[in-house]
């Protein structure tokens, strides 16, 4: 087994193919993936950012989850899951081949598009699906490079491919035209799901998903991800505040409230009691605060448990975690 080293995954694939080797090229990093090679020809690829054959077939309803699981149980050990599905009459050979070809090129894009990633070749490793198709490795490499170029021609911003998707709350023009695929993405984008999450959830190819997102970014229909140093998608993502950035000064109206019950003296125009400078200084940090407490009497002390300024940091994280679990459970169904 070759030790893990950092290199261009595409170059290593070329070397492996030239030596007509059999095994799995494991690519680390984000999103990473694996490319399976049989005697120098690519037979399958997988990546967390691209739905595999099983997800494509079951999430579309083409195969029942039970049928797929059954084929896995029977065929995994002998690496003939694909052939079993055709032999048992669940799929035509054409469907299987087209599905494997689509999934392979899709995952190969994610596994091989990195210029540099930790890569490792496991000689002799095979995939449980079995060799359904045999693709020339050079053709895969060429297609990956072409797909990178296609995306940059649409809208050159790679952060869109990995960042959580947030539709803009107000489109930048009067009339908006979206395709069916774009509609599906907008309806399911909740400011937390990444393109990879959406592709898995909807059973759509990862590359086609990114393509539509780049088009929508170019059209101004989704928010552009902000560039933050050291931002890694592996961390828990805090909820993105969607349209929640109302200025905090709004809570202190500068117009005096005139009540009909009080004496109608015209001189009763005191400045609003909240306009002390201390409140204004605090305002930049106040966006994530819990709702304000009822106004207390001047000089009264806060209850002890509220006096320490500790915003509930875990609240948002829990919500994100629960939403992700819900998404994962839905995808399993």
């Amino acid at each position, binding site marked *: 087994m070759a030790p893990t080293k950092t290199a261009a995954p595409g170059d290593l694939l070329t070397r492996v193919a030239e030596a007509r080797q059999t095994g799995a090229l494991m690519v680390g990093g984000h999103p990473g993936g694996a490319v399976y090679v049989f005697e120098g020809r690519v037979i399958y690829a997988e990546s967390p950012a691209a739905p595999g054959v099983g997800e494509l077939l079951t999430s579309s309803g083409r195969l029942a989850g039970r049928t797929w699981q059954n084929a896995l149980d029977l065929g995994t050990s002998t690496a003939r899951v694909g052939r079993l599905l055709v032999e048992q009459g669940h799929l*035509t050979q*054409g*469907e299987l081949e*087209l*599905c494997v*070809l689509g999934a392979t090129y899709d995952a190969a894009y994610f596994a091989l598009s990195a210029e540099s990633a930790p890569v490792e070749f496991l000689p002799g490793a095979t995939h449980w699906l079995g060799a359904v198709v045999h693709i020339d490795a050079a053709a895969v490499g060429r297609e990956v490079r*072409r*797909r990178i170029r296609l995306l940059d021609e649409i809208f050159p911003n790679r952060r869109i491919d990995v960042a959580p998707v947030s539709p803009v709350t107000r489109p930048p023009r009067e009339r908006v035209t979206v395709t069916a695929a774009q509609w599906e993405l907008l309806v399911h984008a909740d400011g937390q799901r990444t393109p990879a999450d959406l592709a898995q959830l909807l*059973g759509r190819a990862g590359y086609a998903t990114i*393509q539509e997102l780049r088009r929508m970014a170019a059209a101004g229909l989704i928010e552009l991800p902000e560039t933050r140093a050291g931002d890694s998608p592996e961390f828990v993502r805090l909820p993105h505040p969607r349209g929640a950035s109302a200025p905090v000064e709004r809570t202190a109206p500068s117009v005096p409230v005139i009540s009909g019950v009080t004496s109608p003296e015209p001189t009763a125009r005191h400045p609003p009691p909240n306009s002390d400078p201390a409140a204004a200084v605090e305002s930049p940090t106040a966006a994530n605060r819990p709702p304000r407490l009822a106004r207390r009497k001047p000089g009264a002390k806060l209850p002890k448990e509220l006096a320490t300024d500790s915003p509930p940091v875990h609240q948002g994280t829990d919500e994100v975690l629960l939403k992700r679990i819900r998404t994962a459970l839905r995808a399993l169904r």
Partner: protein
Amino acid sequence: MPGVDHCLQEAMTIPGAVGASIVDYTTGFPVATTGAAPNEDHEAAAAGTAEVVQAANSRSLFVSAVPHDLLEDLIITTAGGYHLLRVVQTEFDSRLVLYVWLDRIRGNLAVARRMMQRLADELVAAR
């Protein structure tokens, strides 16, 4: 069992067929090819095919405005040949067309269209 290669071999038996391919029309990539291609370049032909399909799908009102009135065929005729595109409808997520290039003199549009319809159906459904 008809697979992708078998489907393309059959397409080449259509009278007048010069070349055939299956093209992913979101990326303009030829998933499988056989025979000749215009300008002897299957990849360029696939990219052109993809643009034609996308234009028909997104910019022609007679295709996109009526619910479930999906695109079936696109037929382009030139002085020297016929170019037939048949959308392959899979239940799982894919965007594929079967493309056949026919010689104008030996080809017959009606026959070719019927044969392509049968091939595209057989490829994806065990009917």
